[in-house]
């Protein structure tokens, strides 16, 4: 598999990380090396193996549908970058 600078920029875009041309070029070299290492996985035949997503095969617990959290809005918003009238402020997204 060969990655291109365009691929790196596309992935960075998907990950919402701004990246300039020089960074993309440097990143390409490192990612290519890492993917060469990752490619060694392909040597093993796994056609009959079930994927393992987790170390313990536990069933997802459910709990009673009741209120367990107290209102801590002020505390949580005290560390927010920008709030107004109890709301988190972000740049306008709707015209």
């Amino acid at each position: 598999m060969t990655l291109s600078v365009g691929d790196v920029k596309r992935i960075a875009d998907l990950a919402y990380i701004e990246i300039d041309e020089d960074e993309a070029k440097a990143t390409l070299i490192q990612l290519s090396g890492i993917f060469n290492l990752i490619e060694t996985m392909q040597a093993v035949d796994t056609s009959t193996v079930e994927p393992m997503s987790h170390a313990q095969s536990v069933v997802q617990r459910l709990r009673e549908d009741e209120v367990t959290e107290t209102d801590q809005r002020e505390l949580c918003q005290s560390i927010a970058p920008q709030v107004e009238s109890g709301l988190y402020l972000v740049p306008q997204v709707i015209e």
Partner: protein
Amino acid sequence: MFNASLKQLSLQLAEKKISSTELTTEFLNRIKKLNAEYNAFITVNEEISLAQARAADKMIAAGQANPLTGIPIAQKDIFCAKGWLTTCGSKMLSNFVSPYDAGVIERFNQVGAVNIGKTNMDEFAMGSSNETSFYGVVKNPWDVSAVPGGSSGGAACAVAARLAPAATGTDTGGSIRQPAALCGISGIKPTYGLVSRYGMIAFASSLDQGGPMAKSAEDLALMLNVMVGFDPRDSTSLQRDAEDYARDLQKPLAGLRIGLPKEYFAEGMSQDVASAIEKALEEYRKLGAQTVEVSLPNAPLAIPVYYVLAPAEASSNLSRFDGVRYGHRAQSYSDLRDMYRKTRAEGFGAEVKRRILIGTYVLSHGYYDAYYIKAQKLRRLIAQDFTEAYKQCDIIMGPTTPTVAFNLGEKSGDPIQMYLSDIYTSAANLTGLPAMSIPVGLGDKNRPVGLHIMGNYFREAQMLNVAHQYQQVTDWHLKSPV
């Protein structure tokens, strides 16, 4: 006092030979004196620590003491602690004062342990040398030109330099065991699901597990007794009966079968490490254990599998850092997407970005089956290897790391060389098995060597027994660089 075990400190507190306030003050003074050199702590908060110490003194006076009451514990800066700056080693969280306590912090608070400070770490626990921290590198107290290992490098350094009697760490691919090995201390990653992940800032959720780092196996047992326990707020926390992890420490080792995976004793291990490990195995044979060769044929795949699965989970977990509700936000931006992009470009360091990009790629359309599913299939094969191996042995041993601590800067420009320092440790995370490291000698340049002890699921008490018996007949765990 700085070399005392947790049991000795607990006894001194119980006998009123020292108060927690005095003990805490001594350690705070030591940190004040030495942290500039080692950089083991990101945050120290005398006011909170001393208030906790005074409360502990009251608990002790009232006869309500637990073995850890009043004892200063260094907390890795990945654990949210209410009122404490909790940075996870990142610029992204450089202004994050946690509004709540992690499950692990709550458990230490309940027994009256003192939080002596938040330890330095690789950014978001991604690194094996502590060089990716936004807060600067940590020095190895055995040799300040060497790395302490990572990601729990500050914790390992703090215990080794006697800045704290014990510390917490977290381990996603080796982040407790590798720094423990490189700093000459003991550390254990318990079976996945035993220690609550609530409030432990997530890196790769199916691999992350908290655990203790201390001077000896006996100290680790006392720490585990506090740290392990069900937490309904962690969806993968296991509901099990409470155990006393110190219960089997004194058992003789006669008849113990130690499995030596031939893949771990092959090319790649340096001569000084090999020789220290062989001497440790000889000590175990003298203690009545027998060694048998076992095979983990898929072991060499642990690193490539890990570097698909861990970044995949990380790219998802770290999507929460967007500059909206907490943490860093870029100063100037044109619109919402630009705010996300600039905030994340500024807030994350190079290694974290690299892993987010790997993860984003392997999860993206058209590559998911070839990388992510493939890695999950190999993860099962690796786990099956261990199931087979444990039919022939009780415990598996090998080196924790292929070499002793490398020099600062030696591998920081080469991610792959850095990744390979976790070659023996990452399989325990993929399988969820418990694993630990204990010091068993000094290698090149007098830098410590760690023995990796792996057990079957939930066999922590047995592993601690195996480690403790060795520490009864040797003194590597008592050696201090300071």
